[in-house]
């Protein structure tokens, strides 16, 4: 399954004038690397290089690695800063080309499922897939029949290696689901409403009937946090080490698990909170309310960052994809909508479901799963970047009881479903990210690697105040402080040190430096500047007029009052 290369990206030969910090004369610019003519590229044997020049790189891959938004204009800066910025941009371009080339080294390919001769993939059942697939993958499909302890909610650890599940009647267990090795199995003697792994598989947070409890993976209770009472939903923000809890009392509480402090307890003022999801791209918590709105929360602010009206009835489930581009919501009005989160916050696609979806989840490669009663439907998109198309489901499956929890396993083509009959692990080809990064989450890490990763992650824990809608906000130029600083400097010094110095004509020889000719030269420059200013002001006036003119409106008597 090879991707056709659409357009080729020839790297620009950017040569930069390197100025020595001290010497006043700029060095001679390096000659640009000439493209050798194909005719002159003959080797010793007279053979010609059939692919002259550097290897082409597909543009979309290079775009993926570009981080500078070149369309934004920066405020006017000094020549030194501008030259440094140019150098940085040229470097960034080079680096993104190199990174795009390194994609060749990725070992694994994602899975796929295609029906032949117009066969509908939704009709393919799990048993067929299990038969057709290799034995290691077939072993990833299993059913745990646990009818005794009530509907189950489940959670995979961040590496995708460990699974924790908790039943409504108190059964809590954690295991390594790949090797089927049980880590612990206890009954907490209280209703379990939600369960989450903390930063690694060593710690579990269980939202019990009264309070929030933290357990070790051996089943030992470590903490009972009484400030978080009647918690319905849990979310763990891995890079901030924050556990967000939504409670029946209407409070959203953030608990820092590395120091054990409650960072923020926000009153959502919308009654009982039982629909919560996190946006993995910017660590913002999405809460769904019974008036059809979804509100976005950050621990730094007492008010929601944004409120989006999604449904006519109450919102029953929210899910955000891993790049933070799309949000899927489903409501009591039986609609399933996908919203665009980066930019317009408008719904991209809508679908009416026969039965409302109570649970939603996104996979790493953009597949969307909805749990409606005891049926799960999975929708897939075109590629990794496009939203899932809600026309035709990709796969469906019926379970032995109503669904209570859904999560795709990270880095595996597996969907875990918790229902009243226990836990089912379904095979979904093409769901997981094939190439993981060993330094971020490595499912094959050893104990030593896990310990070192944990220390490094704690050292670079992001403080909760930095959570906002744009995670790259810290890299922006703080224009307001810059302008204020400049104003203060002008006030202090009495003059503007960066203002253009008045033109001083250079003294010339041979009588060209007499007073009259100096005055003439100064006048010339002043007139030129004056002309430029007038031209600019005229242009601005033009622009204003063009903007102020109402487009296609009928002239009315009130037009004379329009400025």
């Amino acid at each position: 399954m090879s991707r056709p290369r659409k357009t080729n990206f020839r790297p620009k030969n950017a040569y930069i004038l390197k100025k020595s910090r001290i010497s006043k004369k700029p060095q001679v610019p390096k000659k640009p690397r000439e493209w050798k003519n194909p005719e002159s590229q003959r080797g010793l044997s007279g053979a010609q290089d059939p692919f002259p020049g550097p290897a082409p790189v597909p543009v979309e891959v290079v775009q993926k690695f570009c981080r500078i938004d070149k369309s934004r204009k920066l405020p006017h800066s000094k020549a030194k800063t501008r030259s440094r910025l140019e150098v940085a941009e040229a470097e960034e371009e080079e680096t993104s080309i190199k990174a795009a080339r390194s994609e060749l080294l990725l070992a694994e390919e994602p899975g796929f499922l295609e029906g032949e001769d117009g066969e509908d993939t939704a009709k393919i059942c799990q048993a067929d897939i299990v038969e057709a697939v290799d034995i290691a993958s077939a072993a990833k499909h299993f059913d745990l029949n646990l009818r005794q302890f009530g509907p189950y909610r489940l959670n995979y650890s961040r590496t995708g290696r460990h699974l924790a599940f908790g039943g409504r009647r108190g059964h809590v267990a954690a295991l390594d689901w790949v090797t089927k090795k049980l880590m612990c199995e206890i009954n907490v003697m209280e209703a379990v409403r939600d369960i989450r792994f903390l930063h690694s598989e060593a710690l579990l947070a269980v939202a019990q009937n009264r309070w929030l409890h933290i357990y070790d993976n051996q089943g030992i209770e470590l903490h009972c946090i009484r400030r978080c009472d009647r918690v319905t939903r849990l979310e763990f923000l891995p890079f901030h080490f924050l556990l967000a809890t939504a409670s029946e009392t209407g409070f959203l509480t953030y608990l820092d698990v590395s120091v054990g402090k409650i960072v923020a307890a926000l009153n959502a003022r919308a009654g009982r909170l039982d629909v919560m999801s996190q946006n993995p791209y910017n660590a913002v918590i999405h809460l769904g309310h019974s008036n059809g709105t979804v509100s976005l929360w950050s621990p730094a602010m007492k008010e929601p960052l944004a409120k989006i009206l999604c449904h006519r009835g109450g919102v029953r489930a929210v899910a955000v994809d891993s790049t933070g581009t799309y949000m899927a919501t489903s409501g009591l009005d039986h609609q399933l909508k996908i919203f665009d989160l980066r930019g317009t916050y408008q719904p991209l696609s809508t679908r009416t479901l026969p039965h409302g979806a109570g649970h939603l989840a996104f996979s790493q490669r953009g597949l969307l799963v909805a749990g409606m009663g005891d049926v799960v439907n999975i929708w897939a998109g075109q590629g990794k970047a496009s939203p899932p198309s809600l026309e035709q489901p990709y796969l469906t499956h019926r379970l032995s009881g109503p669904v209570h929890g859904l999560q795709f396993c990270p880095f595996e083509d597996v969907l875990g479903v918790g229902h009243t009959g226990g836990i089912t692990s379904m095979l979904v080809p093409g769901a997981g990210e094939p190439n993981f990064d060993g330094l971020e989450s490595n499912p094959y890490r050893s104990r030593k690697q896990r310990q070192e990763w944990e220390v490094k992650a704690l050292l670079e824990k992001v403080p909760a105040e930095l959570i906002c809608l744009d995670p790259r906000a810290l890299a922006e130029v703080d224009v307001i402080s810059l302008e204020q600083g400049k104003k203060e400097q002008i006030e202090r010094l009495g003059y503007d040190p960066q203002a253009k110095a008045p033109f001083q004509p250079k003294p010339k020889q041979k009588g060209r430096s007499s007073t009259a000719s100096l005055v003439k030269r100064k006048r010339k420059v002043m007139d030129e500047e004056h002309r430029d200013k007038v031209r600019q002001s005229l242009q601005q006036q033009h622009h204003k007029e063009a903007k102020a003119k109402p487009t296609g409106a009928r002239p009315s008597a009130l037009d004379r009052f329009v400025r």
Partner: protein
Amino acid sequence: MKVKMLSRNPDNYVRETKLDLQRVPRNYDPALHPFEVPREYIRALNATKLERVFAKPFLASLDGHRDGVNCLAKHPEKLATVLSGACDGEVRIWNLTQRNCIRTIQAHEGFVRGICTRFCGTSFFTVGDDKTVKQWKMDGPGYGDEEEPLHTILGKTVYTGIDHHWKEAVFATCGQQVDIWDEQRTNPICSMTWGFDSISSVKFNPIETFLLGSCASDRNIVLYDMRQATPLKKVILDMRTNTICWNPMEAFIFTAANEDYNLYTFDMRALDTPVMVHMDHVSAVLDVDYSPTGKEFVSASFDKSIRIFPVDKSRSREVYHTKRMQHVICVKWTSDSKYIMCGSDEMNIRLWKANASEKLGLTSREKAAKDYNQKLKEKFQHYPHIKRIARHRHLPKSIYSQIQEQRIMKEARRRKEVNRIKHSKPGSVPLVSEKKKHVVAVVK
């Protein structure tokens, strides 16, 4: 139906034996690395804090002189050899790795005013208050021999400084005038003078080796051409320059250490404006030396501290001080650009690290981590929290209170200037830039 599931072979991801390295596959997709900017910011913050934690620049103090150390000289070939001349006429040769004195010579009666090594490293020259120039062998005397100079030249006036040519067998002394001597002769080849005052120091340009610079008591810096045996041009400053040092990497740049607490970096070709004015000392700057990289220099001051300045910045990046170190008379940067030696009034020579938090002797993994941290600190250096931590230095109370006082004085002067400009006819009071303020005149 066509189906393929993602299945990884654990053999490709888990190491075979305990003696192998762990396998770490990498994927640089930004979607797998969220929160890049905040995480890098926190890493930069940690790197800056650790740099301050590990900033322990003082290495050793060389003890032995019985009077203040007046001048230092480096051996051109051996990194570990240093020569120092004291105010009681004693010259000592030290080994820096063993931190002991390997040879002592009673060279002069009175101060040893200047000491310089020959470019080949076989001998060195000293001048003293007893109006003599003496040449000594670098290797010690054999068994039973007395310490005798190779050559002694008796002059008529006191010589205050000496410097050797970088390539030829020629040296220059200064006193009442600048004399150029050939090593074989007892009379100078030529004497150059401009003005009537005594000259305190002379330095040869390491790149354009025929050029010389000297500092005189009448507040000027004179540049000479040895081939034509004439002075070229001079620049007159506000106050007297104690010494100059040529940039070993840029042919025409030199830095002058001045009495008005500043250092001025000049481009020889345009002496009317200094390239940079370096202001951070609170007392007269006595000596300056460049790093072999040509990017930084170190200055020694009467205010008991030494400061390291980058060439293109007007503020120092580092200040070294100790309770025991009194007025620092001379300073040198070693030829491997890693260490700084300073000789002070209280008879000690101190050895410092040029980069205070640098770890000496790194493995390749440590080097990679150090490079990464360096780049992070550079990238985030302008953020307010990081800037505050990186800039923070402990200063002794005397220097700190002097800085506050001088700041108040400067503010008062500036306010007066601003008021003068505000309340007079626009254009009648000219705005002089800070750089041009200190240069009085340039004479060709």
